[in-house]
């Protein structure tokens, strides 16, 4: 019993829909890609001017992490050092990488931009979530072909078991060529309202819904 961990809340955004803890909290099927993500930001009236400076990938991570932590404010329960952020995706920062490449490919119009270049690292989105919520625990960004619940659940369970973290914000945030998908969830020893055990099967179920 002692070693069980639980998915205490989750937030998923894809296909013009945002789901928080089994409930559709926002739907806007007419807007595509980043316009949809911006509409989520406006709909929930997040007041964070830095949002507009973020690349698409970080914008997506920002809105889903905001909704996740609104549903389950783990920063009030745990000290900042005990919350880990472990996130994964498939395309790393390729969306903004391509944008940076475009600023340097034409010698006649050569203006590399620091505001673009800084986002050419996938883990910047972890930094954005950490800054927004003052979270200081473990950080890791993994890259997989597809979301890998088996590896992620096993890695995070041992992180919690060894006491290296007491809570983990984790999941998948991917944005490339107008395709977006975010699935973030919190893992803790406490059951939370969802009472879903943190196993790869349960993650798969939630992810595929």
């Amino acid at each position, binding site marked *: 019993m002692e070693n069980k961990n639980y998915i205490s809340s989750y937030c998923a955004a894809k296909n013009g829909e945002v789901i928080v803890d089994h409930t559709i909290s926002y739907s806007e099927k007419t807007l595509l890609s980043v316009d949809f993500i911006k509409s989520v930001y406006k709909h929930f009236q997040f007041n964070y001017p830095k949002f507009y400076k973020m690349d698409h990938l970080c914008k997506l991570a920002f809105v889903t992490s905001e909704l996740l932590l609104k549903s389950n404010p783990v920063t009030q329960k745990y000290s900042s050092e005990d919350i880990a952020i472990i996130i994964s995706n498939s395309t790393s920062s390729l969306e903004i990488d391509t944008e940076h490449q475009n600023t340097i490919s034409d010698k006649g119009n050569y203006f590399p931009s*620091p*505001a673009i270049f800084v986002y050419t690292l996938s883990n910047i989105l972890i930094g954005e979530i950490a800054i927004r919520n003052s979270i200081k625990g473990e950080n890791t960004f993994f890259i997989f072909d597809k979301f890998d619940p088996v590896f992620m659940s096993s890695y995070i369970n041992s992180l919690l078991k060894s006491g290296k973290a007491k809570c983990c914000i984790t999941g998948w945030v991917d944005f490339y060529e107008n395709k977006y998908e975010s699935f973030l969830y919190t893992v803790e020893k406490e059951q939370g309202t969802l009472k879903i055990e943190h196993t790869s099967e349960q993650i798969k179920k939630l992810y595929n819904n």
Partner: protein
Amino acid sequence: MDALIDQLKGEIIEQLNLEDLKKEDIDADAPLFGEGLGLDSIDALELIVLLEKNHGIKIANPADGKKIFQSIRSMAEFIKANKK
């Protein structure tokens, strides 16, 4: 000068992704960093790119930016004085 200030406001909103701001929200004399627009170190570097891209003025030493980027007005004055 006023036309240049107006133009700069538009350029800054675009270059620095200040999508939530309109030109009239920005005071030409307010400090760009710290309290005013709340810009950061990346924005400072981005303003250097803006000067080069839109106005053909190169700043080699980023430390020079401090004076130039005090406000939109100081930027406009710098551009006027250095435009070839």
